[in-house]
């Protein structure tokens, strides 16, 4: 029996372990189950990323199809391009304000809504806050265009009614206010969705924890601070990643509202990429901007993941 058992382990290994070649072949063979998925992800996700880096080292005329290798010239141009600095700042402002409103603001709003005793009111408020998220960006853009319209828009009308007409601005037409007017619209639209996600996370917290805290004399604020906040840390971390990554990929809102104007003051990396690639026929430079967006979002994602894991280990 022993001899039979020994021969059954295959060629060359007397300790019972399979031969490395056979083990490798076995592992490769098992990959067949994920090969299709890997192929699809590789072709549609990783190949374009790699190809984007390659295209970014070229000067590419889309009309003639001519491609000239120019090394890192597009990246040198990227560093010297003043609009890139403007776009980076605009994306950063987008990210910071979105974290403030769509993560921390939405968390507190969800905590308040979920703290309501009436089921009916909880449902109503959830729906009220979620409705803006169900409206398309194009429609929202048009709506806010009318709100911001100089002289006859609702915002200017409201300021005039309040005796604050000196604060009236050409919100979408002034370099100093255009991007913030767009960010404000985006917060209005995205706030409810974040609130709903936090509501779901809060609903999963065991009620016993709140009951125990109440018995210990903790007030509502203390309960949110000591129970809700720590118990939704995973959701908060995820929301920050999604928000920051989304802020560096923002495109539709800016295209619909200002297309990057006036005078490129509301350009973000996405719209400047589009302008370079599809209006100025400079696909190579557009690809370099794409690489910058990839680098920034990758960095933010990795940093946030590391931080969340680090906190989990410490906890």
């Amino acid at each position, binding site marked *: 029996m022993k001899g039979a058992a020994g021969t059954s382990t295959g060629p060359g290994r007397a300790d019972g372990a399979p031969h490395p070649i056979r083990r490798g072949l076995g592992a490769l063979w098992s990959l067949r189950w994920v090969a299709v998925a890997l192929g699809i992800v590789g072709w549609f996700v990783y*190949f374009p990323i*790699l*190809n*984007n880096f*390659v*295209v970014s080292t*070229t000067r*590419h*005329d*889309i*009309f*003639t*199809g*001519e*491609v000239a290798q120019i090394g890192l010239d597009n990246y040198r141009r990227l560093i010297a391009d003043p609009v890139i600095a403007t776009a980076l700042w605009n994306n950063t402002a987008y990210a910071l304000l979105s974290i403030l409103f769509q993560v921390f603001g939405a968390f507190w709003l969800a905590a308040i809504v979920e703290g309501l005793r009436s089921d009916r009111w909880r449902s109503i408020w959830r729906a009220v806050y979620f409705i803006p998220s169900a409206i398309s960006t194009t429609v929202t853009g048009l709506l806010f*265009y009318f709100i*911001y*319209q*100089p*002289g006859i828009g609702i915002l200017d009308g409201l300021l005039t009614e309040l005796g604050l007409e000196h604060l009236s601005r*050409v*919100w*979408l*037409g*002034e*370099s100093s206010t255009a991007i913030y007017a767009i960010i404000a619209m985006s917060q209005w639209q995205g706030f409810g969705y974040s609130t709903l996600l936090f509501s779901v996370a809060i609903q999963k917290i065991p009620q016993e924890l709140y009951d125990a805290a109440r018995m210990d004399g903790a007030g509502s604020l203390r309960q949110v601070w000591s129970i809700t906040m720590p118990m939704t840390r995973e959701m908060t971390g995820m929301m920050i990643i999604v928000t920051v990554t989304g802020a560096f990929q923002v495109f539709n809102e800016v295209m619909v509202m*200002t*297309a990057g*104007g*006036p*005078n*490129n003051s509301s350009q973000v990396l996405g719209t400047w990429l*589009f*302008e370079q*690639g*599809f*209006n*100025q*026929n*400079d*696909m190579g430079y557009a*690809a370099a901007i794409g690489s910058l967006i990839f680098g920034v979002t990758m960095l933010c994602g990795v940093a946030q993941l590391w931080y969340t894991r680090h906190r989990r280990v410490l906890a």
Partner: protein
Amino acid sequence: MKRSLLTAILAVTTTLGAGGAIAQTLIADPAALVTHEGTLKVMTKFGMQRLAPYFADLAKAYEAAHPGVTIELIQEDDDSIKSKSKTLVAANAMPDIFFSWTGTWGGNFVRGARAVDLTPVIGPGTEWGKALSPAAVDAFVYDGKNYGIPLYLDAKFMGFSKPAFEKAGIEVPTDLDALLVACDQLRAAGYTPIAIGNKEPWVGVHYIGQLLAYNVPRNVLEADFEPATATYDDPGYVAALEQFGQIADRCTVGKAMNGISYQTAIQELSDGKAAMYYQEIIEFDNAASATTTLKPEEFGFFRLPAPADAKGDAEALEGAPEGYMISSASENVALALDFMRFVTKPENGKILSAPPYGQPSAVVGGADAATMNPSVVGGLDDIAQASYLIQWLDTVNHPRVASAWLSGIQAYVGGDMSAEAVVASVRAAAEAAK
């Protein structure tokens, strides 16, 4: 080995990234047999609700006459067609028939061999060529060859409300100073003198285009439109910008124009709130119609008045015909040409020239004054009297130079750049585009 593998990967990915092989130059064959079978993709600039039925109706009529043919329309508007065209070029997916402006815009398709050489079918001496306005056909000539089928003529005029002018007690201004004085009087009469929306920055650039024709000699302009010969050192550039600044200050809402859409602005004229709107002839039927407050008989137009001491050409007019090209990648060029021959029949031209479309046809005999808006008829006469047509700055220039103009004018209006700084940025863009 590693190096060659890397080189191969780079070569493959670069080719894929470039979207494949360059299209071959194709010359239209006038004797080619038309097979009325298959699908034609047509990309138009008639995406606006008012204009969309024109090509839709023509497609239905053509399909009814030729049951084996299916016409697929891609209808875009002024703004969306710019990026859509380039996206389709990059993807090597140009439709069989596609819209094109003249100038550098159309030149890009020619340079890239994306458009069929139509000289044998529409060039000098051909039957089809004789059926179209010669000036419009010539506008699509590149290197002595014809590449475009002009569909309609276009030029920029100042549309105005006759009741507003009567109320303010003013006549049509004959020079720039008179226009500025008229603006003061119109404002005093309770009107916004000129409605303008520069949220889409080509609006301001159209003013500059006409003012450049007045202030800069034609030969200088044409040299500057080519990055290789551009210098942008003529003082007329700064003068034109300063004149636009005067118009913005005294006739419009000033820097607020950067936050207003051009569609909102034209609505102000239609609603009778503004006295003037600088518009293309193809917008006349949009500004005043049976359904607007301003009725067609109350609508008038004049050329943007030239400054009294203009150093350029005071008789020049900004505008250009617009038309269509045939994709060299089309598998059925003969059918595409047959469809365009159908589109440019005089009876279809008359439909295009009349309300609600109001696009003055480039077809000889394609305009019938009896069915057209009298202002459009008058505009056509005015176009014929122009010493030359200066093309749109945002399509005649290299894209980088056009971009400098577009953002520069917004900055100038907003007070972020001086006239000299705008011209310097345009000069720098031309330098970078060499």
